């Protein structure tokens, strides 16, 4: 019944089946929205945050989605600036993921602040010295860029594309896309970085504090770097998931391979920098404030050395090494393992830089702070996942996200015909209703 909207030359599941999926995701979404409304109406007492845990799961979720959404800016950067043209076959999906991640991040921020009605103060009364201001500005700007990047994709929908204005707009926007992508990369560099700066500038928090250049601590650069390195892994992972769900190959291996290889090398170099940073912090910076590094990983219920090893080795070096080797990338299992580990690794890094920072006591007579999110926090954190499923499902169904899909999954002639006929009928219906438009 919606076949007129489905791109030409591809096969989609039946409409009821599609609605079932949307319904399931919608239910989760509704749960999240309910929690969100509770929080907006009743206030942040609906969470389990406290005065020691002012930043908690939401800020982590924010940082994490932006890190994994980094695939958008980095593949954009690779395609439009570096000129890796193969990536055009995955860039649409990367942009879609980016769009989802960034809109989610903004939504979470709007839930996270105690006075949402005054949220615009961050722009209007901006303190340019604050990393959060930088985050807000760049995040918003880059979200605009992502919207601009996503827009032509939407307009390429079979139905919309028939409207001349939209058709032309798509065309023109594609032509200028390199400019937008470049601006986006520039903005991304800063907001990914400033998110790293958020923790790194806290000179009252020796666990987070890092020295750096100008106003930017090392974490600024590490975050940008890690988003560029790990973001594409999420793009690959999301592609793999979608391929699994649809049962189709959507992107040719060479594209994945290229992205994985670049990602792998980025990760490897990142890990070297990160380990250097960690070592400098552990052996020089923290001791200079009177902290033995062991203190940060002992004497508490949760944060042990395991988290450092997990982040740096198991979810850092291991996936990096897999991805830089040809063999590793060629093996489906190894590749999947690597991207999964990488995504966990970058999320874990964000976790450490938010939640562990809050947990570590600074005054010698203070105690470790522990925190467990309330269901409202969990629901609002899952909300973006449901939202992502819905948006991906709709986009995949109705928009030409994967240029190689038709080629990789040729449909039988009769199917194509039937499909064509159905859509013609639909078109005729529309034409009947609006003869003026057809003439």
């Amino acid at each position: 019944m919606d076949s007129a909207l489905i791109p030409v030359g591809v096969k989609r599941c039946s409409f009821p089946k599609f609605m079932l999926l949307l319904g399931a995701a919608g239910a989760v979404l509704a749960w999240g929205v309910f929690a969100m409304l509770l929080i907006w109406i009743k206030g942040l007492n609906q969470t389990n945050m406290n005065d020691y845990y002012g930043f908690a799961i939401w800020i982590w979720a924010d940082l994490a989605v932006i890190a994994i959404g980094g695939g958008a800016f980095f593949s954009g950067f690779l395609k439009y600036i570096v000129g890796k043209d193969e990536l055009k076959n995955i860039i649409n999906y990367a942009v879609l993921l980016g769009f989802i991640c960034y809109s989610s991040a903004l939504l979470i921020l709007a839930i996270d602040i105690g006075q949402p009605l005054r949220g615009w103060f961050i722009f209007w009364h901006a303190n340019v010295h604050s990393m959060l201001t930088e985050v807000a500005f760049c995040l918003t700007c880059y979200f605009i860029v992502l919207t601009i990047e996503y827009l032509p994709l939407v307009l390429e929908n079979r139905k919309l594309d028939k409207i001349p204005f939209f058709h032309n707009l798509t065309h023109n926007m594609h032509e200028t896309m390199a400019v937008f992508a470049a601006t986006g990369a520039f903005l991304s560099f800063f907001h990914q970085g400033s998110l790293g700066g958020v923790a790194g500038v806290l000179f009252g928090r020796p666990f987070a504090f890092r020295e750096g250049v100008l106003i930017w601590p090392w974490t600024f650069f590490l975050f940008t770097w890690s988003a560029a390195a790990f973001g594409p892994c999420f793009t690959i992972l999301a592609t793999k998931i979608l391929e699994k769900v649809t049962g189709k190959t959507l992107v040719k291996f060479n594209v994945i391979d290229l992205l994985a290889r670049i990602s792998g090398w980025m990760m490897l170099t990142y890990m070297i920098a990160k380990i250097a940073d960690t070592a400098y912090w552990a052996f020089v910076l923290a001791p200079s404030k009177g902290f033995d590094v062991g203190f940060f990983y002992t004497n508490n219920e949760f944060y042990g050395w395991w988290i450092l090893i997990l982040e740096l080795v198991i979810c850092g070096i291991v996936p990096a090494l897999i991805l830089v080797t040809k063999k590793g990338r060629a093996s489906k299992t190894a590749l999947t393992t690597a991207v999964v580990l990488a995504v966990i690794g970058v999320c874990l890094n964000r976790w450490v830089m938010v939640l562990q920072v809050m947990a570590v006591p600074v005054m010698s007579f203070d105690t470790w702070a522990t925190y467990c999110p309330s269901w409202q926090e969990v629901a609002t954190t899952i909300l973006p996942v449901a939202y992502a499923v819905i948006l991906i499902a709709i986009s995949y169904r109705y928009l030409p996200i994967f240029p190689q899909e038709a080629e990789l999954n040729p449909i039988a002639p009769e199917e194509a015909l039937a499909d064509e006929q159905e859509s013609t009928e639909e078109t005729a219906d529309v034409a009947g209703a609006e003869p003026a438009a057809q003439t």
Partner: protein
Amino acid sequence: MFPFNFEWIWDISHLVFMGGLWYALGIIGTGMGYCIIKTISDTAQGKGAHHDEHH
């Protein structure tokens, strides 16, 4: 965020930060403005109106 805002100071931080911001917004705005204007003119010229289904 604007020079007439209470918090604005004519100093290096504001010039760099807000300069960067307005520069980026300027590019985005100009780019979109260009696209829209060009599209309007393209559409007015009848481009894309009767384009082939199988282009």
